[in-house]
């Protein structure tokens, strides 16, 4: 049995020209294997900071991230990351971008087999036809699908998303949310999704971790989303529980922004 991913007493302080700035302080979350959680909070509260520490791209000042009982502070192939912008390397075709990851995850496979892996994931996210296209020729949505294929081709245990749909129009965003949901249903990887879209968080997650406003952001509310699965968007818009959860999230965010404004005044 795999153990949970633990974010334990995490604090992050940046040195700024105006002195030390503690973005998150004493942040604690336990994420069970196969769980889909969303990290939700106001802009600038420190969501990306937490996620990039989990990804190993930044170091915690205090506390840390524990996977299988060991603290991790470097990136690892067990964690696939999808950023807000697709971040495809513009000089590589879609396939070569995915292949870059597939080769890392399967260094011992023959070149043809590595290609198979990359193609499999491009196919899985529905963009196999664009394999030989260059990123600049692809729409934002397609690029983000390729980026997801790249993360998946690492065959990681954890998927970390940082507002992956933030730059997309709403139709494309819906499509990609459904894709992510479908992919997750298939093999139940552990997912951490950073978002500021309330409906997205409720629609996708098992649990929403709401952050208080920074500085010194903490976990403000840990809200289980007990809506039945598989979910579909139509059900979500006519379900009483859905509206109760939505109201609860909004109440939290509203309260915290008011508190924040009061403190700022």
């Amino acid at each position, binding site marked *: 049995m795999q153990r949970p991913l633990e974010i334990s007493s995490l604090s992050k302080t940046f040195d700024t020209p105006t002195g030390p700035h503690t973005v998150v302080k004493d942040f604690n979350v336990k994420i069970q294997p196969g769980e889909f959680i969303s990290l939700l909070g106001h802009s600038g509260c420190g969501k990306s900071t937490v996620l990039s520490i989990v*990804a*190993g*791209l930044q170091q915690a000042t205090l506390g840390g991230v524990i996977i299988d009982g060991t603290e991790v502070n470097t*990136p*690892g*192939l067990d*964690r*696939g*990351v999808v*950023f807000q*912008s697709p*971040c495809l*390397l513009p*000089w*590589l075709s879609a396939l070569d971008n995915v292949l*870059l*990851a597939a080769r*890392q995850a399967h260094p011992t496979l023959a070149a043809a087999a590595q290609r198979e892996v990359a193609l499999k994931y491009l196919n899985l996210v529905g963009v196999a036809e664009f394999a030989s296209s260059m990123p600049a020729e692809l729409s934002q949505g397609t690029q983000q699908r390729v980026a997801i294929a790249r993360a998946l081709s*690492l065959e990681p245990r954890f998927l970390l998303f940082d507002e992956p749909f933030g730059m997309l129009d709403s139709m494309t965003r819906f499509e990609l949310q459904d894709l992510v949901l479908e992919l997750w249903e298939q093999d139940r990887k552990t997912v951490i999704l950073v978002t500021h879209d309330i409906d997205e968080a409720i629609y996708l997650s098992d649990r929403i971790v709401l952050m208080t406003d920074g500085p010194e952001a903490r976990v403000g509310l840990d809200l289980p989303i007990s809506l039945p699965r598989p979910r579909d968007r139509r059900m979500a818009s006519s379900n009483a529980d859905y509206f109760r959860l939505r109201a609860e999230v909004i109440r939290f965010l509203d309260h915290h922004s008011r508190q924040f404004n009061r403190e700022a005044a």
Partner: protein
Amino acid sequence: MKSFLTSFALAMTGILCVVLLWAALAGNVAPDLPSPLKTWEESKPFILQPWEKRGEMDQGILRMASYSLVRVAKGFFLAILVGTPLGFLLGSSTLFYRMFDPTIQVLRPISPLAWLPLGLILFRQSEPAALFTIALCSMWPTVINTMHGVRSIPQDYLNVAKVLRLSPWKKFTKVWLPATLPYMFTGFRLSLGLAWLVIVAAEMLTGTPGVGGFLWQEYNSLIYSHILLCIVTIGVVGFALDRLMGLAEAKLRAA
């Protein structure tokens, strides 16, 4: 096509204006300046038989230019061979940058006329001294542009390299090099221009055959029209080199 013809016509008109000004000055204001017509008459054997070799310093103008070009090419390759890795080091390591940037800023403005004697002392021969001078003077744009290119690699790409745990070699070939290539090429282009600028000085001081050497010899023999021939040749060749590099750069950006 039409706009091309217009710019061509305008450029030709510009050249004509300068030649007319030259002709006007040559007769009276500057009595020692050969007129355009005289320059042409006396340069004809060099232009019409551009590959002719009549003696060590009496050769067709293209042949002379080719000697200079080969020398420039050698110096230029030496410059980018040293300059590119240096730029990568400076761009990727703050320690290295803080250690060597001040020295580079001091070396950069030194004229080829100052380096050449040092080269002659070091190598005791004119040819390697010339290459040494060309390389030292033309290296800096490559160094600085490569460094700047490395510094401008978007953080997003570096993050991708990190989360994929690319090996240093893969990180270099798949991320750093392609991201820096356009900057490097801008550096190469500027370096080549500088190398061509330096060649004349190097040949003048070492007296080696080439456009610059020829220019200096004809100055000493008081054949002033040939000086003008050399000046025009140097300009035209330099322009052609820059255009060629520009084309290569555009090809690279499109690819």
